[in-house]
């Protein structure tokens, strides 16, 4: 059971990274990024392509793929998303949903739907003695990277000048402009940062999950539920809910396997009945 709980936390590490990126993007842009799962999938494929065609190993991919995807995200924001923010939010949904389908089908077209193999990095191929049980070293590494990334994001948001600006622009975009801050300048970097987090999660997933074009679509539905449970736009909420949902689904698999696919939505419904804005969300004031 303890081991299953640990599996849950590792699964939660992916939810948390993805939910964190979605939350940061939604907070600043008010755009629900349906393409987030596709960027996660691209992260995994990026690692695969680097290894398969260029012979670059996992550690190179871990650094370069998120950076490249982050840059691509900034470009997407500059060229497309920026033009939509003045329109009805529906256009943002449609665009990111369409982008998700395009990216997914493009990869499907090139690599087919079967899963691509990706080896574990040799340094992390063994297992660690965690006292009560042995656990694959790679999974421990994933959990550590996710926790560190979430903590670093939290520190950036709460302790740095950029973080203050992002929080201010998230809460009151118009007022923040009236106080002399060029909010528009920070939008693309924030979008790129969120996309980079999805890419990082994708690279981390490559050695332990099936690398295929649908891996993002399968995961992102749960991640949306995680973000809603944590409270849309709440950074702390999405990370906490990410790990919690990972834990709950893993234990659900163990005790009520029949419910394992629906459990997260049952939890979401219960949380929304109890707190309509999510666990850590604030009721949306007028924008």
């Amino acid at each position: 059971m303890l081991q299953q709980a640990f599996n849950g936390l590792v699964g939660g590490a992916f939810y948390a990274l993805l939910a964190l990126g979605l939350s940061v993007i939604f907070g600043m842009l008010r755009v629900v990024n349906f393409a987030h799962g596709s960027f996660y999938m691209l992260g995994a494929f990026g690692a695969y392509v680097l290894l398969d065609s260029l012979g670059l190993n996992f550690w190179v991919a871990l650094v370069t793929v998120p950076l490249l995807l982050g840059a691509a995200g900034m470009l997407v924001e500059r060229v497309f998303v920026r033009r939509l923010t003045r329109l009805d939010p529906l256009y943002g949904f449609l665009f990111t949903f369409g982008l998700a389908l395009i990216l997914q089908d493009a990869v499907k077209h090139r690599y087919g739907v079967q899963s691509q193999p990706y080896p574990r990095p040799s340094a992390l191929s063994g297992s660690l003695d965690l006292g009560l049980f042995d656990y694959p070293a790679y999974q421990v590494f994933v959990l550590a990277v996710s926790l560190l990334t979430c903590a670093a994001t939290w520190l950036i948001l709460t302790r740095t000048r950029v973080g203050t600006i992002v929080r201010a622009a998230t809460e009151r975009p118009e007022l923040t402009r009236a106080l002399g801050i060029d909010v528009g300048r920070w939008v693309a970097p924030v979008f790129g940062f969120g996309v980079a987090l999805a890419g990082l999660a994708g690279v981390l997933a490559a050695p332990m999950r099936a690398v295929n074009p649908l891996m993002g679509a399968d995961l992102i539905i749960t991640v949306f539920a995680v973000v809603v449970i944590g409270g849309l736009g709440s950074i702390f909420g999405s990370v906490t809910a990410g790990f919690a949902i990972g834990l709950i689904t893993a234990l659900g698999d163990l005790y009520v396997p029949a419910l394992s696919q629906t459990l997260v939505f049952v939890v979401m419904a219960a949380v929304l009945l109890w707190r309509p804005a999510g666990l850590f969300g604030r009721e949306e004031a007028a924008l």
Partner: protein
Amino acid sequence: MLRIEDLSAWYGEARVLNDVSLEIAEGEIVTLVGRNGAGKTTLLRCVMGLHATGGARATGTIEFLGTALTRLPAHRRTRCGLGYVPDDRGIYATLTVEENLTLPPAVGPRPWPLGQIYETFPRLRERRRSPGTKLSGGEQQMLALARVLRMGARLLLCDEPTEGLSPLIVQQIGAILRDVKDQGVTVLLVEQNIHFAATVADRHHLLAEGRIVRSLGNDEVRAREHELLEHLGI
């Protein structure tokens, strides 16, 4: 310093400002008085460049220190030396008091250092780590004023800074406004409390249905206080 000419503004089809023209010289405190819905807040928002989204649009000329503001985005206008104190005080809940103070950049030649802000507003120093909206209404108003002083703004646009506050705090706000005037700061003040307005301002414009219907000096405001109060419906 600030010159507004033939300013008109609309929300969708509804016209809320009608060819308003006014001028403010450096170091003056000028008020806009008028009933709710007369267009006072809209006028400030037009100057700040905030009357531009949704169905809002405006025409006319706004010049500040010789720079035409009309075509500039909001943040560039502010950087010309404007300090905005919005009607809801504009305090961030997710920022601490100190972050609220230090968020905006310096926009004028003489921004107040944080130390001077805390000397003038000791309560803000005590609460500097609290979230901005945990302060009382009066403290939040002080914070909003302190913030534009820290920016070193040369023209303050204050939207009803005394609304809903106790007489003691209203007095303090009056003292602060007179103080900054002595330092050469200019103020455009939206105010319903004409009694207070007459104690701090040099001139007053009465706004009704989007037009300036009368401009008055302090003596006139005092002499016609009853008539004005009746007009304002207070």
